[in-house]
């Protein structure tokens, strides 16, 4: 497992770099760290797991990587559903209701204060 810590502004560039290097997108994981979210984009490169990690304040917005990898759209929608994280420009945006119905609780994985 290889970790690369990046600033949110570098995300698109770093993803593009990995994709050009023939890495395969696996998924994205969001973790509620209290004041901020930790977002991990997981890739596979030559059978090794590569994690692109970024931390953002809960009020901040992340730019979607789905314009580079269409397959990431579902993972990003899922993070929006479960955590309410702000992600802009998702190729197909379900607006926080991809897995959750209108009657479901909102942001179920957000930690209670």
């Amino acid at each position, binding site marked *: 497992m290889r970790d690369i810590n990046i600033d949110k502004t570098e995300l698109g560039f770093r993803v593009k770099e990995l994709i050009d290097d023939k890495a395969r997108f696996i998924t994205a994981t969001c973790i509620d760290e209290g004041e901020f979210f930790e977002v991990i984009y*997981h890739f596979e490169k030559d059978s090794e797991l590569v994690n692109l990690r970024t931390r953002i304040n809960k009020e901040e917005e992340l730019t979607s990587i789905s314009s580079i990898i*269409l397959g*990431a759209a579902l993972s990003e929608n899922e993070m929006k559903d479960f955590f309410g994280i702000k992600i802009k420009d998702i190729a197909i945006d379900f607006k926080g209701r991809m897995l959750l119905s209108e009657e479901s609780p909102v942001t179920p994985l957000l930690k209670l204060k």
Partner: protein
Amino acid sequence: MPRITFPFGPQHPVLPEAIQLQLTCEDEKVVEVTPVIGYMHRGIEKAAEGNPFVNNVFLCERVCGICSFMHALTYCQLIEGLMNINVPPRAKYLRVFWSELSRIHSHMLWIGLLADALGFESLFMQCWRAREVILDVLEMTTGQRVIQSSCVIGGVRRNIDGELAKTVFNLLDEFKKQWDAISPVVQKDYTIRARTEGKGILPKEQAWELGIVGPTLRASGWAHDCRLLGYAAYGELGFQPVVEEGCDSYARTLVRVREVDQSLELAYKALNNLPEGEIAVKVKGFPEGEAAVCVEQPRGELFEYARGNGTPHLERLKIRTPTFANIPALLVMLPGSELADVPVITLSIDPCIACTER
């Protein structure tokens, strides 16, 4: 040409589970597709945070009713990685044995569903009849047909001794006899080829760029299979992925057909070479730190990530199932196809929506 948009699903004869495809068509040709999910989300990742980590084995197993054993295996390997637990060799071989039986019965179920979607009812029934033999072996060796609960953190809960192994070999021989009669029909039948060849093309480069996994990826020419990582006993048993170059629904069918043979061979090998010794070790302490694992499920790579904080409860458990990764493939496969081919092309990724939504 005017365009019309209409829903395909969530209830449709070809879909065993609920997913909607919003299709935009020009006459009979599909020009655009938007998948809509969210009909069967169960909040498993949330539930996992509330359970003691040991109990999550049984929760994760219920992500899917077909490859339940592999969901339990993945979670167990994840926690074993977090806690540096060494699983006894005998347990690793038994894990391969049950994993491969799960793959066989999943592929047999899918081939049956494909036949059913084409209106080939006798083949559908033959496939599911042969599948019953594998379910009998699972019941005989684990006590359960569907949710086996035989995998635990640190090993397995059930052993297979000499007498039971003999009965299992007889049943596997019986399955092989039935399968050897079915397999050529699936590969050569005129109708199956006419309905699948050249349908739902997923070009090689696009398959990789979209993050597609499993038989869907291998049918587009990629020798990608998590078993190559050598987890459980795969490293010792030897293994080469089944690859096809056709990139169409027929290639995806062939990959699964050939994988039934391969899984049967691996199941025989695992049982024939069972090492002596314990089947489980005791687990002490609580998970701390981060780990991620990949396991090759019948539909492809199952990815799990966990973060522990030294308490009985995990801070985060992330489950990315293969169908979740494969749904974007439909955005490439379906546009340009005839409306009549949509059911078979959709089926060709072997969608498991209960897995996808967790």
